[in-house]
């Protein structure tokens, strides 16, 4: 039956078993005739031990996808396969034990920690909920987690307001790791941090990933951060996948006009690389009334008549490198 099964980035060389398999994910907000089409027909795999980047601008659907994958939002349509089950269809009772394995780190380290709880209880709450490390083992586990994220053990007795943004984000990471998850969604975890602190937290994530073999969906609007941390990258625009590729291939050789424009728009901290650029014209259309055919066509410098009538499917343009664009001959300018 699956209409979902038509637009899947399945590589000819695909062998590795996915930990998370997203198929034909749709999320519409609001009912009635004109819902907000936040996510439209998104499919991707996340392999064990992989950090998959989800990049896009405001309204691209990246945070919504992250929440649908964890079933913090109910998808309108589509499947999220994990451990032989479809998370999108599981009843809440069946979902609860799986919550331990699927965790999230939020963007705002000020809003995501309960100001009335001591750090001990913020982290301990996760342990208690899942009945882990009871009694004497609880304090030891909390101490272990604090040192894992690079915080002094005696911080357990303090309250969130005593900490800076970077320290709070470490606490948020410790809370997510407390229950030994197999998979973490990190939703803009460094966006609110100053660059010198951001570097500390990125190093921590990379270190945790190497030590614990974490699998992560890393959501960010920052192309440099995604290039640094992610193995593969999904580029989103107006709720749809534009391109999926290994990070290095995507940044060296973007194949979708939107990816090309996004990379060109990102300012480089190098006065010698400042080029006279022609920025992308116009703005992102409304997700209530997205353009027909390719949603990017209204801003695309390579647009043709056919783009208005056909929704481009993802096709493999190099091993593991997919793009959703009708034109095979673009981008024209070699990087």
């Amino acid at each position, binding site marked *: 039956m699956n209409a979902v099964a038509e637009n899947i980035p399945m590589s000819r060389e695909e062998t590795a078993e996915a930990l998370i398999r997203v198929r034909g994910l749709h999320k519409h907000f609001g009912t009635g005739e004109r819902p907000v089409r936040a996510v439209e027909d998104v499919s991707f795999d996340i392999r064990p031990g992989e950090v998959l980047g989800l990049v896009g601008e405001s309204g691209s659907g990246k945070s919504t996808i992250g929440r649908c994958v964890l079933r913090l939002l109910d998808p309108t349509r589509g499947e999220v396969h994990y451990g032989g089950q479809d998370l999108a269809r599981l009843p809440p009772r069946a979902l609860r034990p799986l919550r331990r394995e699927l965790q999230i780190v939020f963007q705002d380290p000020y809003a995501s920690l309960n100001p009335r709880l001591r750090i001990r209880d913020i982290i301990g709450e996760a342990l208690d909920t899942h009945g882990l490390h009871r009694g004497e083992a609880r304090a030891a586990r909390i101490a272990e987690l604090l040192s894992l994220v690079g915080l002094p053990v005696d911080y357990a007795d303090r309250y969130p307001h005593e900490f800076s943004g970077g320290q709070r984000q470490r606490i948020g990471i410790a809370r997510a790791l407390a229950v030994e998850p197999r998979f973490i969604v990190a939703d803009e975890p460094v966006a609110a941090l100053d*660059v*010198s602190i951001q570097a500390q937290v*990125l190093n921590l994530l990379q270190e945790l990933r190497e030590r614990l073999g974490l699998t992560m969906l890393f959501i960010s609007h920052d192309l440099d951060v995604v290039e640094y941390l992610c193995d593969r990258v999904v580029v989103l625009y107006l709720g749809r996948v534009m391109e999926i590729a290994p990070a*290095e291939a995507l940044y060296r050789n973007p194949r979708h006009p939107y990816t090309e424009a996004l990379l060109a728009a990102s300012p480089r901290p190098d*006065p010698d690389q400042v080029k006279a650029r022609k920025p992308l014209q116009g703005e992102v259309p409304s997700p209530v009334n997205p353009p027909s055919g390719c949603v990017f066509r209204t801003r695309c410098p390579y647009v043709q008549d056919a783009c208005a009538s056909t929704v481009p499917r993802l096709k493999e343009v190099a091993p593991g490198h997919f793009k959703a664009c009708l034109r095979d001959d673009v981008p024209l300018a070699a990087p």
Partner: protein
Amino acid sequence: MTVSTLQKTVARPAPQAEAATALLDVRGLRTEFRTDGGVVTPLLGVDFSVAPGETLALVGESGSGKSVTSLSIMGLLARPAGRIAAGSALFRTRDGASVDLARADDATLRRLRGRELAMIFQEPMTSLNPVLPVGEQIADAVRLHLGLDRQAALAHALRMLELVEIPAARQRLREYPHQMSGGMRQRVMIALALSCEPRLLIADEPTTALDVTIQAQILVLMRKLQHELGMGILFITHNLGVVAETAQRVAVMYAGRIVETGTVREVFKAPKHPYTRGLMECLPANAHRDERGQPVRLKAIPGQVAAPGRQPPGCAFAPRCAFAEPRCESAVPALAAVAPDHQSRCLRWSAL
């Protein structure tokens, strides 16, 4: 209109701002705030100047004092808590007079703001009036400062919206800020700020809330307008990429002081303060991967900036600095000239 006539007469930015010809010359600016916990001093003595037609970027992280600097210059400190405790900010008006913005009374500042100096902020929604159509807001400003009648003021507002490349400007004139996207609102705020052709524009993180493709549009627009109108820009940002794109000179702030200043090229290519160098090195854009394709650790700057009032007696960066020596902790280093237009507040700059 005036824009095109100005275009011909304005020279390209001077590479070096001399105090004598400077549009804005700030010396020893020190700002303090009274709080329940006593007096805090987020700005500890700042010196810089902006030449006509030049863009100076003020860059630094949270709490470095960059926004307090701009609010002090504009006379927009929250009162009575905030006040300028020392220093001067000499501004040269278009008729050649020199006004010390740090001491000017409210009436003088009101006359200057809009006409001589203007400011744009990160979040346009908080600076635009939500219950007035944007055309009226611009028209109000030009009626006040340029003495135009209502019809002429609205016509001027339309020209401004066209100047900032707002599509269907005539319709937009009657729209309210909430009907616009973030990028459009930022264009309106720029139109409002530039409507009386100020000589100095203070832009405080004007693209931080915008998506990168929209940020690129706004940066190109600002460059174009500066070229046409010849104004000086004090561009406040935390984003080093934006600095490289927009400014000729840069001043790096840390804990209430400028720690390094010079041309963007010199400061970016050969930083002579350990903090500047640390900022460059910890950027993911400057990161590498090892032969297995794994990301090599970023050279993060350890620790965090001390809260105002809890700073060490010497160099504020010393506790985080790999180059620190005992002498760094005894007194605040002075800005030392390391090249003709390049200064560093570091005793050990020659070791970098």
